[in-house]
């Protein structure tokens, strides 16, 4: 297919009639990835950012609860499932942030297994990479211990987000990701998730739970305990 490649690129170049010599400028832009205007909305103190994140997530029908430490997550999850009248079988991401929580000790009534999602899994628990305050958006990344199917197959998706991971704007989250992965490197899948699945395809009336999760619950972990 290199014939087609040359044909397409050749046609582009003929139409543009651009003098050669811009290559260095293009490479510099890609390497430096300068920011464009970042809205003022998310530029807040850390506590205000978390408040804005919570308000924005709630505005798109996600629910949020806060706990003081990671060890309190299992109880918060159990309480949420009880309130919502949901089953107690969890499919948990193998990532140590959530897999190593004291599930058996703190939430003995829940059944916990780890791994990628299977069709029958009703509730998943996954760690967030970041929370983005400006629109109440979660950033989740795939990787060794973080299967992406957990974010989409189960009807209820529970995400554990540390308050220290909440940033103001998308650009701040990209910077965190570059620190973690390296320049120009992306995990296979990066999911920006803003509220549960929805559709307006029938008479433009919004219904939740089209194909992805019907419910998105976010447990924000304040305080230390990394």
């Amino acid at each position, binding site marked *: 297919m290199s014939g087609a490649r040359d044909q397409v690129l050749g046609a582009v170049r003929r139409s543009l009639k651009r003098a050669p010599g811009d290559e260095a400028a293009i490479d510099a832009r890609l390497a430096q990835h*300068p920011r464009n205007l970042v809205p003022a909305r998310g530029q807040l103190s850390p506590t205000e950012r978390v408040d804005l994140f919570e308000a924005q997530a709630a505005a798109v029908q996600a629910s949020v609860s806060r706990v003081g430490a990671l060890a309190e997550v299992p109880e918060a999850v159990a309480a949420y499932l009880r309130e919502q009248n949901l089953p107690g079988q969890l499919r948990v991401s193998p990532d140590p942030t959530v897999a190593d929580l004291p599930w058996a000790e703190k939430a003995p009534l829940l059944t916990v297994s780890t791994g990628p999602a299977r069709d029958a899994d009703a509730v998943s628990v996954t760690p967030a990479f970041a929370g983005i305050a400006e629109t109440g958006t979660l950033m989740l990344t795939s990787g060794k211990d973080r299967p992406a199917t957990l974010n989409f197959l189960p009807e209820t998706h529970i995400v554990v987000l540390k308050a220290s991971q909440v940033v103001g704007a998308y650009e701040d989250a990209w910077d965190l990701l570059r620190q973690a992965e390296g320049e120009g490197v992306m995990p296979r899948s990066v999911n920006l998730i803003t509220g549960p699945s929805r559709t307006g395809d029938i008479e433009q009336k919004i219904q939740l739970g089209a194909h992805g999760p019907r419910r998105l619950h976010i447990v924000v972990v304040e305080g230390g305990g990394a």
Partner: protein
Amino acid sequence: MQSTSHAFKDNATRALGDAQLQKAMENVRGGFIEKRLNVVEKLPEFETLRDQARDIKNHTLAHLDLYLERWEAKVTERGGKVHWCTDAAAARDAVLEICRAAGAKTVTKGKSMVAEEIALNQHLEANGVTPVETDLGEYIIQLRDEPPSHIIAPAVHLTKEQVEADFREAHNHLPKDRSLSEPVELVSEARQVLRQRYLEADVGITGANFLVAETGSSIIVTNEGNGDLTQMLPRVHIVVTSLEKVVPTLEDVSTILRVLARSATGQEFSAYTTFSTGPKRPEDLDGPDEYHVVLLDNGRSAMLGGDFQDMLRCIRCGACMNHCPVYHAVGGHAYGWVYPGPMGAVLTPSLIGVAEAGQLPNASTFCGRCESVCPMRIPLPKMMRHWREREFERHLSPASVRMGLGAWAFFAQRPRLYGLFSGLAARALARLGGRKGRLSKLPLASGWTKYREMPAPEGKTFQQLWAERQRKGTGS
């Protein structure tokens, strides 16, 4: 897709008399406009972001070859493969070849306008591969064997009663006496039926809203999550997209994403914005084994550097049609091909030729609202005028257009349709004027009033413009 754009007038006449369609179109005339206004008011930087989004795309288009090369290098580095395709036939064949190599019987599909453009479903079916649309709207129109009528809300022309009837016919394994009259029941049923299809499929095909040169990622923006299930569950993921979708960096795409959902659905952000980069990595626990991008030109490279280059900035948000009185009146199918509304009126003649689609640029009142809401600041009315001029020069225009009478004249000669049409337009505009209920508060009030004071068809204005241009010797 076989075009009926040449028959726009007949299509439009039929649409205006279709009571079912007119009922469904009420949903467009209302919701979208109000929702967009609400969300735009909440972001003071919105207008500046539009300027920057335009500038980012202009810069990218001016260096498109360089960005495409860098994007491709990143895709390859990550284990993906790019298939360059000059036209629709090549793209269809490239997809089929990948499906065959994968031994695919069933493929699931996320919404892709480029796949519509290359008539992919028909090609796969003819060659023994069953495509299953998974976006709810696309699924509904696939059951009906219809093309989409809107670029982000493909089934917007249907009422829930029609969808219920389609589901009862198609899902005949389910109990006949089940309740199915509410949207929530319809959505649940589709969810249940399609879940099985995701799990069975051998190949998942999605479009791409953007391609990122910095990282080699393709991006899909959805609300349902169907695109994600489509691309992560099967063994092979094929992205079907076109070359103007590339943007330089994650920062650049963030700026454009800030104007996309707000303009499209009036959301601050869509539920799912997913960046896919190559196939499953050795350490990954899920994801596809193969990642292909079928990259289509199909006339786009020829638009660069000419009168219609600006159209390549389009991010397919649908705002122009959501705000278009002609689209409101006739719906998307009347336009006769894949892309309806003002963006279709400009793009379709570029892609399938002015001989076939030359009527579309007349499907305008030149009220200017499409340009006033286009997040990428595409001068749609100006480009429609360009097409009219070209059409005039080529003597392709029917006699009535040559005499200076366009779509308005068509309606004006049919008093009943004219009344209906102008009534709808005025109602839609009144809604846009919105909370204050006064047309003088419209963003383009002066432009609109100018045209409103002139009951003569827009074509007359064109004629004057034409005469002026000819006098100045700037006729193109």
